[in-house]
């Protein structure tokens, strides 16, 4: 498994080359927020400023609006026409380890008993090229979530920023194949690998924010009925859906029919447990009060998901902390639980 490297000024050529066969997505801020978009020469400067996207990687696999199928009422009943994502392979460059891990976490759900064709099709056709973080953000706490800012096993290729050069390391078979087809790269030395290792360690040490996940499940279960605690921490929450929509692992959706008398479209939209209507039923709403809704989000991530799939559905990307308009901080909430 040979690793390779490339000079940063050669990246443009590399991306141009890759764009010929498939679509290449790179981070851009041209839209006014940071997200992945098709590569073009004008947005090749991201290496200089890129930290992480505002909208997480999940949006590329589980879009905020998904057309599922069209239906049509004909003579002999309903006719259904499935809409599946296009069979087009894409390379996503600049995936942060936390997001790659998040994709894997929700991947287990989408590939559970029910195999979600939309998510899986896209995942199958995508090659993720990770980009390790040398300078993690103030809000990151990935190190506490069983991950590391610079390292990832959930991508196909992992890049490390070595200053003038980028080091490409293969992680998966898919990645290995891609790397062997990439031109303009030079072989890397063992020195490069150890330098990358040092950089990763340094990055890991830069992470300031920490939470303690030991016995968290049990601790949370014990405090499920601790109304006072949850009321206190949820007091400032505004019940918007920002934290869930920017979260790389939140995956709740709402299925809805857009019908038009005879024909229509079934769509799947993002939904958020923070919305008061999320659990509303004809007679009542089991999560009518705000503290119950806030509690749900953390319990789901740190307890239920762990129970069902053996992993905490949080990767410590820190988006929810950064984007929350009232600064509700998951690390404070978990630390609070641990200290109860």
């Amino acid at each position: 498994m040979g690793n390779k490297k490339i000079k940063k000024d050669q990246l443009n050529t590399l991306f141009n080359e890759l764009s010929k066969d498939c679509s290449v997505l790179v981070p851009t801020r041209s839209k006014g927020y940071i997200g992945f978009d098709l590569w073009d020469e004008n947005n090749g400067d991201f290496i200089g400023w890129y930290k992480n996207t505002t909208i997480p990687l999940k949006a590329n696999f589980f879009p905020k609006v998904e057309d599922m199928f069209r239906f049509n009422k004909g003579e002999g009943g309903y006719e259904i026409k499935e809409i599946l994502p296009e069979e087009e392979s894409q390379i996503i460059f600049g995936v942060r380890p936390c997001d790659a891990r998040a994709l894997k976490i929700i991947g287990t759900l989408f590939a559970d008993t029910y195999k979600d064709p939309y998510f899986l099709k896209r995942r199958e056709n995508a090659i993720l090229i990770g980009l390790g973080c040398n300078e993690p953000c103030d809000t990151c706490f990935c190190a506490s979530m069983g991950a590391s800012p610079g390292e990832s096993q959930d991508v196909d290729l992992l890049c490390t920023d070595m200053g003038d050069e980028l080091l490409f390391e293969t992680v998966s078979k898919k990645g290995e194949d891609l790397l062997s087809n990439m031109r303009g790269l030079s072989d890397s030395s063992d020195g490069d690998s150890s330098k990358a290792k040092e950089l990763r360690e340094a990055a890991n040490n830069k992470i300031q924010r920490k939470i303690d996940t030991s016995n968290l499940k049990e601790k949370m279960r014990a405090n499920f009925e601790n109304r006072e605690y949850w009321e206190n921490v949820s007091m400032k929450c505004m019940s918007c859906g920002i934290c869930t929509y920017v979260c790389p692992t939140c995956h709740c959706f709402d299925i809805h029919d857009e019908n038009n008398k005879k024909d229509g479209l079934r769509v799947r939209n993002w939904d958020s447990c923070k919305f008061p209507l999320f659990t509303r039923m004809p007679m009542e709403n089991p999560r009518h009060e705000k503290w119950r809704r806030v509690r749900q989000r953390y319990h789901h991530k740190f307890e239920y998901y762990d129970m069902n799939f053996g992993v905490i559905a949080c990767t410590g990307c820190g988006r929810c902390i950064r984007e929350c308009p009232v600064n509700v901080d998951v690390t404070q909430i978990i630390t609070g639980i641990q200290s109860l």
Partner: protein
Amino acid sequence: MENRLKEEAGKLLKEGKVDYIVGYGKGSVKFRTSPLITNKEEELENLVINPFIANNLSRYPIELKARVGIVVKGCDSRSLISLIQDKKVNREDVVILGVPCEGVVDIKKIEKHIGKDIDQIEEIKREGENLTIQANGSNQTLSFKDAIFDKCLGCEYPTPLEYDVLLGTEISPKPDMEKSLMRIKELENMDATDRWSYWREEFSKCIRCYGCKNVCPACFCERCFIDVNIPQWVNTYATWQDNLVFQLIRTLHVAGRCSDCGECERACPVGIPLRSLQRKMVEEVKDLFDYEAGVDKDALPVFTHYEDTDPEEFIK
């Protein structure tokens, strides 16, 4: 100011005049503050007043349904007055701790001006009319005016309009309307088609997180029209058209009650310039009906009252 606040807030809790104090506490993110809502005297130590107190806290008294001592800036006081007009907050149930405010620092503006991101900035200090910003070990100065939110540039009421305790001295307004409304003027001067494509572009970004409506102090409905499904006024299917319709209707609903606190734009994670819509309506309402939201708590709300002489030259 901070000490005075702690003292006054402590007194209010101790004397049992209020059940809660709603103020600003230190945030868990650099250069951010976070709403601090408490009924415990010992937590009042964490109250802060600094140039980063961006949140508009006036929504909280509605939810708390209790007597509240609330910290407000000039703009927030207008939201609160609006809520009093809308009968959502009883004036008797709130003790208003007014903070005269010269403007709130927009960290994004600083990032843009000095070309460094928030993680690189170590310290921001106010020195007279300037800010000294320490980033990556070196110092840079920036005029305070260049670092505050656009809405603050055009602020006509820096001192709260309604308060029980004023925590500082009154500040005379120095609104720079031209700068504050620059983006709106630019849009107005565009071609209609360009304007349309501008909004189309912006609303394609919307992810319908409803941050805008949930932080808005004028959006206090128990159920938003967006959640009505008989009939389905706005589709959950978030096309840009539906996103735009949602925001246009929201704009009309808050028109006459919006006092340009700018929270919607600040909350928007994808950076849709919502203030350009809301502030535009503030200007229109002023122009059409000579009405400013949240200036007088006894004024008659603009869209539930009318004058025989209202403008109607647009009616054919």
